[in-house]
């Protein structure tokens, strides 16, 4: 009975819950809370993206497009048309999920760099449209977004958002861990490991690739909506190429095929630039250098590489 509780997944969830619960006592100012909230939001997106990239072996260089679509749908319907934010968020997720479903099948026939190109292209197209259609989106200057409210209760303080973000992160982690450790999760990993082997044992690989693509898009859409309400401002840069690449870096740096790796990756990449601003002009140089060094010395990403070292140490 005790052994069931000491499984890595339970220990990990517990550690995460503890960190989330204890962190507010450590964080000193609004700025740090803001980073924590943004880490949590990014982590949720990256957990979803990791399912696609790390576990199923696909690639998406345009995932910020889904963030943008979710965000702008919420922003526009709530701020301009007065929709209830919770409804807008759910509808956005459904629409983005449907969109992802429609493009998934043709796009996922592509492999490797061609798939990367297609997702890159789609992401850029989304951000260009968001940029150009300023009558709707406010264009490159962005648009202000009404705060999130549900049943008359408005989320305005950082503390409130912190608990929302933290709670959702815990939920996303649990869902992701569940999925990985199930027949569906094994099918996804098999698609990555050997698509033809998966096919001959009965895995409809196309269906599963589409499934995980849609799931990761929905994760992104939800975060996009919530982020827009949290920051109360949204600009097309949020859906842009840089953001998409950042998300992929978070997946790879933290560790592919590792839910906790996704969280670590998000944490590091969200907070590192803040730490590096002290270096002013040298910020980008050092950032690039850190990226290269991490990948050279920990090629599987931080969490899997450290896990590997630990295992070899105990063998």
């Amino acid at each position: 009975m005790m052994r069931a509780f000491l499984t890595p997944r339970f220990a990990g969830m517990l550690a995460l819950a503890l960190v989330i619960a204890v962190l507010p006592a450590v964080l000193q100012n609004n700025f740090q809370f803001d980073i924590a909230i943004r880490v949590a939001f990014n982590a949720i997106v990256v957990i979803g993206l990791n399912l696609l990239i790390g576990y199923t072996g696909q690639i998406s260089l345009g995932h910020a497009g889904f963030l943008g679509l979710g965000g702008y749908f919420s922003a526009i319907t709530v701020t301009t048309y007065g929709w209830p934010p919770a409804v807008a968020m759910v509808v956005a997720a459904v629409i983005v999920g449907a969109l992802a479903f429609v493009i998934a099948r043709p796009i996922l026939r592509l492999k490797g760099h061609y798939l990367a190109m297609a997702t890159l292209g789609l992401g850029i197209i989304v951000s260009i449209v968001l940029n150009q259609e300023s009558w709707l989106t406010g264009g490159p200057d962005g648009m202000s977004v009404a705060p999130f409210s549900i049943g008359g209760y408005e989320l305005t303080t950082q503390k409130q958002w912190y608990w929302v973000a933290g709670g959702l992160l815990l939920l996303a982690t649990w869902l992701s861990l569940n999925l990985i450790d199930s027949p569906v999760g094994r099918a996804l990993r098999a698609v990555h490991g050997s698509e033809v082997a998966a096919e001959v044992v009965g895995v409809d690989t196309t269906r599963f690739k589409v499934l995980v693509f849609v799931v990761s898009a929905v994760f992104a859409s939800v975060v996009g909506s919530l982020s827009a309400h949290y920051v109360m401002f949204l600009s097309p840069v949020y859906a842009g190429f840089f953001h998409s690449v950042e998300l992929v870096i978070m997946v790879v740096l933290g560790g592919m095929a590792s839910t906790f790796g996704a969280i670590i990756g998000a944490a590091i990449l969200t907070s590192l630039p803040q730490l590096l601003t002290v270096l002013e002009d040298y910020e980008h140089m050092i950032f690039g250098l850190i990226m290269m060094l991490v990948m050279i010395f920990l090629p599987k990403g931080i969490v899997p590489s450290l896990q590997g070292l630990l295992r070899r140490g105990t063998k």
Partner: protein
Amino acid sequence: MLGEFIQYLFSGLTNGAIYALVGLGFALIYNASHVINFAQGEFVMLGGMNTVFLMAAGLPMPVAIMLAVIITAIVGLALEKLAVEQTKNATVVTLIIITIGAGIFIRGAAQVMFDKSFHTLPPFSGDAPLNVLGATITPQTLWVLGITIVIVAALQWFFTRTLLGKAVLATSHNPLAARLVGVNVQFILLLSFGLSAALGAIGGVLITPISPTNFEVGIMLGVKGFSAAILGGLGSGFGAIAGGLILGLIEAYTAGYISSNYKDAMAFVVILLVLFFMPSGLFGKRGTDRV
């Protein structure tokens, strides 16, 4: 009417030639290592920026250009030696992230060593406009097109007529087999990075008189060059060139006849359509996996 059409043709081909050079760089490195070098665009930036600053330091233009290309080539070699070669048994994804990091590093270094402003170079032979079939073009355009043609021809000769070039081709088809017949694959990889960097730098020098350079131009150029290489079919040098020119033309004609705001979007729409019908690009290898 015709004049306008020809105008767009030239501007499309001019930009397209630069995309082609960047795309070629992608293709070269991909062929040697199956890695996509996302720092490729930065080589273009380094070519232009280095030339600007070397000239500002007093060097005559031809010397500055040569030195800039050499410096950039060295950066390419350093990237391979210090970053790519250090990763043993890395997956392609890891290497891609390393090159992205390298790109960020190079941009950051450029920001520090140069500055954040836009810079331009004097055109090679003046800027007296020429009239071609009703279109007004600058002599620099002819330089870009002319030198690109010369480079492509030189590369063609290199790959088909020299032993080293053939070794590079062999490595691209089957690295293991190449190694077994005595090809130094590590050296080929080094050479590919150096050559790609030089190609990018030359592109940067050629285009800066027309389109000012700045420490960030590499990003979008990298994306366009990658798109060119994919459109043409990854692994095909000829495809990269064709892809680059096509991309340039789509942009120019979209900007001219439809809307300049959507020129980039249109390019990507076309690429997506091509990939939908030809999943390996226009001239890419279409193979069945052996199981």
